[in-house]
Every structure is written in C-alpha cells, then in structure tokens.
C-alpha cells in the first residue's frame, strides 16, 4: 500500500513538507467487540487541509477519527497527533473536538454559555479565574453560530440543530488550530446547516485544519479540499471532490476500487436525480447514528 505517499500528493493548499502533519495513521487496525472496524488505514493529514471522511453507515468513519484522537485504541498499526502518539500528546489546546451529539448526562441543567465556556478548559490554568480573553472568546463563538441570544437558556431545551451549533461553539471557544467534527450535519435542520457552512467557511479562510465526518456534505461541499471515502473499514478513495463543474455530470469522484453504489454525496440534491447513488446500507441519508 502506498496510500500515505499518495495522500501527501493531494494536499492542495500547502506545499508538501512546509506544513506539519496534523494527523497520521499507518496500517491502522481497530476491532470493536472482536469485530474488525478499520482494516489497514494509511492516512496523513497536513495542517491546513479541509478533509471530509465519507462513507456508508458502519463503514468506520467515526471510528477512524476517534482512533486518530486516541479515543479508540488501535489493535495494530500506529496513529500520531502532530507527530506524537495520542498518549504522549500534550498540546490538546490545538484540537477542537465536536462530538456527534451533546451528552445530556444525568439531567443537571447547563446553560448554553456554560457549555460553550467549557471549551476554554484546555487553555485555562487551575486556580486562575476566567479572564477577559476567555469571556470574549466565548462571546465570539456564540456570535458565530448565531446563538448569542440563547446564551442563558438550558441546552437541553434547544433543538438538535441548535445543540450541534452549541457543540461547534464550544470547540470554537478554545480557539484551536484543528477542528475534528463527528457528523456535524447529522439530523440538522436547514438553518443550522447554513450556519455550519458559514462557520466552516470562516475557519477555512483562517487556514484552520478541519477533519469532519459526514454522511452528506450539503452546503459544505465547496469548502472541502479532500475527501476520504471509507468502505468496510478500508479507504477506497482519497482525493479531491470535483466541485461540480457540470452539475449533471455528477460530483462523485471515486477511484476504480469503489462500487458504483458507494456513498459519497457532496450534494444532497443529486439523490433524487440519481437514485442509484444511494448508499449501500439503504438507510435514510441523514440518520447519523454510528458509533
């Protein structure tokens, strides 16, 4: 497999070698409950790339990013964050993680502001009071997801899309270099999708690294510089998404290894037009429950 060398070749926005490698995995295998979920992943993501991990339900997308972050242990192979194995990595402020959904926990309420402010934790020292810098970062994060007016509301009473925006604002508040988002668009209403695409555009403008898992990209598609398509725990495509030069020609870019029905849907509108492009799982495209 020469996937990793191929991967470096497609980093379009930075000359290879200049930007540090944010994430890398070599021959990564993960098994969950004895079932192989990732089988031999080679991947390098350089700083400044905007990468979408695509694939059907159960293809291993979420597991891949969780393994890159060290949340799921590898059963074989190795993973590195900025050149260090996750267990030895210390500069966690560089990474903003947006989990799939807000964990409600035992039901103790928390306000939107409290949750967003907790995103500063990697930058705060123990025993130091909340600083002006903390407060203004939180205010900016709330503004950029359009939830400043809901800051005092309990998160439990927001809609799913708004909760997703809270999670993104929490990551934004930490002002990281790299964003890792697990299905930020799953089950999100149109308004929140637009907000999300707007936020992502700002991040791309600022040169941030973004690694996101998605079932469909929707309005985010034009911002993605590279897509990694998984199928049954293997990478079946790694390269740019064609940004729809000829809409009817279809935007799906797959290498020869992928079956025609394999999922890679940068534009949800094409599902109606081209029914054969549905993902093999046959499930609804927006159901994002994947562990």
């Amino acid at each position, binding site marked *: 497999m020469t996937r990793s060398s191929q991967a470096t070749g497609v980093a379009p926005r930075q000359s290879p070698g200049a930007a540090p490698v944010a994430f890398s995995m070599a021959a990564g295998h993960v098994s969950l409950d004895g079932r192989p979920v990732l089988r031999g992943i080679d991947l390098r993501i350089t700083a400044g790339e905007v990468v979408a991990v695509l694939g059907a339900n159960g293809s291993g997308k979420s597991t891949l990013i969780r393994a890159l972050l*060290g949340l799921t242990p590898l059963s074989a192979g190795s993973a590195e964050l900025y050149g260090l194995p996750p267990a030895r990595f210390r500069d966690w402020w560089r*990474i903003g993680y947006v989990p799939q959904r807000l964990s409600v926990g035992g039901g103790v*309420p928390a306000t939107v502001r409290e949750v967003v402010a907790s995103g500063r934790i990697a930058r705060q020292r123990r025993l130091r009071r909340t600083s002006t810098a903390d407060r203004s970062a939180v205010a900016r994060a709330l503004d950029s997801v359009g939830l400043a007016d809901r800051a005092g*509301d*309990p998160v439990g009473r927001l809609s799913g899309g708004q909760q997703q925006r809270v999670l993104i604002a929490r990551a934004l508040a930490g002002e990281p270099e790299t964003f890792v988002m697990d299905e930020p668009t799953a089950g999100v209403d149109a308004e929140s999708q637009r907000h999300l695409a707007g936020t992502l555009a700002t991040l791309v403008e600022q040169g941030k690294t973004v690694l996101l898992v998605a079932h469909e990209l929707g309005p985010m598609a034009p911002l993605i510089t590279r897509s990694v398509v998984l199928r049954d725990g293997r990478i079946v495509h790694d390269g740019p998404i064609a940004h729809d030069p000829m809409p009817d020609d279809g935007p799906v870019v797959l290498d020869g290894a992928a079956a025609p029905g394999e999922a890679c849907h940068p534009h949800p509108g094409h599902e109606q037009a081209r029914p054969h492009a549905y993902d093999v799982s046959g499930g609804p495209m927006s159901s994002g429950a994947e562990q």
Partner: protein
Amino acid sequence: MIEMLQYDFMWRALIAALLVGLAAPAVGTFIVQRRLALLGDGIGHVALTGVALGFLTGTAPVLTAVGVAVLGAVAIELVRARGRTTGDVALALLFYGGIAGGVLLIGLAPGGSNSTLTSYLFGSISSVTSQDVWVIGVLAAFVLGVVAIFGRELFVLCQDEEVAKVNGLPVRFLSLLIAVTAALTVVIAMRVVGLLLVSALMVVPVATSQQVTRGFSTTMLLAMVLGVVSTVGGLTSAFYASVAPGAAIVLLALTGFVLALGVGRFVRRGRTHRAGP
C-alpha cells in the same frame, strides 16, 4: 430556637449539620450529572465495614470509615472505568460485601453488636463529639476545596468524558478525585443522617434544585442552600418534636422536592408562554 442553643451537644450537631448540608449537595451535583446517583449508597455500605473495623481495632470509627470508604470508592471507580456491562453487578457485590463485612467484624469486636452499628446506619447527630466536629470540619473543607479548585474540569468530565480527554484533562485522576471526594462526603454525613440515608443528601437537593434552575452553577448553589435548610431545619424540628434527626432531615429534603416539582412545572409553563410568539 434559643432553647436548643443552650446545649453544647446541639451546637456541635448544628455545626456538623451545616457542614454536611453544604458539602453533600456540592459533590452530589457532579455525581448526579455523571449518572452515579447511587454511588453514595454504595460507598455508604462499604463504609460500614470501616466503622466496624474501628470498633474492632479500638481506633476512632470515623477514621477507619474514611480509609475503607476511600478504598471502596476507588474500587468502584476502577470497576466503572473498566467495563460497562458487568459494572452493575460488580457494584452490587461490593455493597453486599460492605454490609456483611460490617456485621461480621462488629460481632468480633469486644462488646460490639449490631446495635452498635445502628447509630451509624441511621445517624446519631446528638452524640457528635468535638473530635467528630473537627474531623467533619477538615473533611468538609477538603470537599469544598476540591469543588472550588477542580470544579471547571469536573464539569467538563461529568458532561462528556471523551471531550474531557480531547481537552487534555487528566480523566483518570479527576474520576478518582470525584470518587474519593464522594467517599469523604459519605463519612462526613454518616454521623448526621446515617449511612443508609447519606445518599439522600447528595441527590435530593440536586434533584429539587434542577426543577427550577437553568444552569449548572445555579443548580449547585441552590442545592447547597437547600441542603443547609434541610439539615439545619430537620435537626431543629427533630429537637422540638423529639423525632430521629436523620429521618427528619431527609423527609424535609423530600418535601422540598415535591414542592419544587409543582413550582418547576409552573415556572416552565410561564417561560414557554413568554418564549412563544
């Protein structure tokens, strides 16, 4: 009110009640958020072995209870962190072991019997010695200090452990810290409400508070106020009505919960109206 302040033992009891009323709901807020509401019960059972060990060895039962409760809490945390499916059963085994160990050891202690344990099971705040007050004071200061110093990190941990990990927080240390803090709280509250009712003071004020609050810190602060009102109010009414203080405290806290259920429904309805078009 004046009459009861003429007694030294009531002063000691009131100080103990105040400290417990503050500390238990503060830790309880994190524990409830972590879905470990029954952790206090588990530690309480294990602490009984510690109490009996104190009688057997001639050491102050409060001190041996601290030691055994801390060990038990660490064991519970390790079991929790390992597996999910067998966690329940493993915890249950620990609870039974704690009670059985306590009963067995107290029988071996010179002059000890199950009735010796009763005052620890149900509390006997009126027999609190000044040494007890000192131990309770030090432990309460530790517990409140942990909440003040690590509160921000514990909030992230209790919200989402994986997010805490990706933020570089020392997840294992914080998990043990919260378990140990809970163990100390159990021992503090042991003399006031008894081991069987300890958990009520960690859980009920929080459950009451969250009916009417919107944020985490306000929930915790209100729970602490409710905790103090319950412990001091329960103790006072027990003094005048000659009933068991531990039971009076818990029933007062539960009454607050029932009232808050109604108030909370009313408050929420008002809010939806205002938020509506």
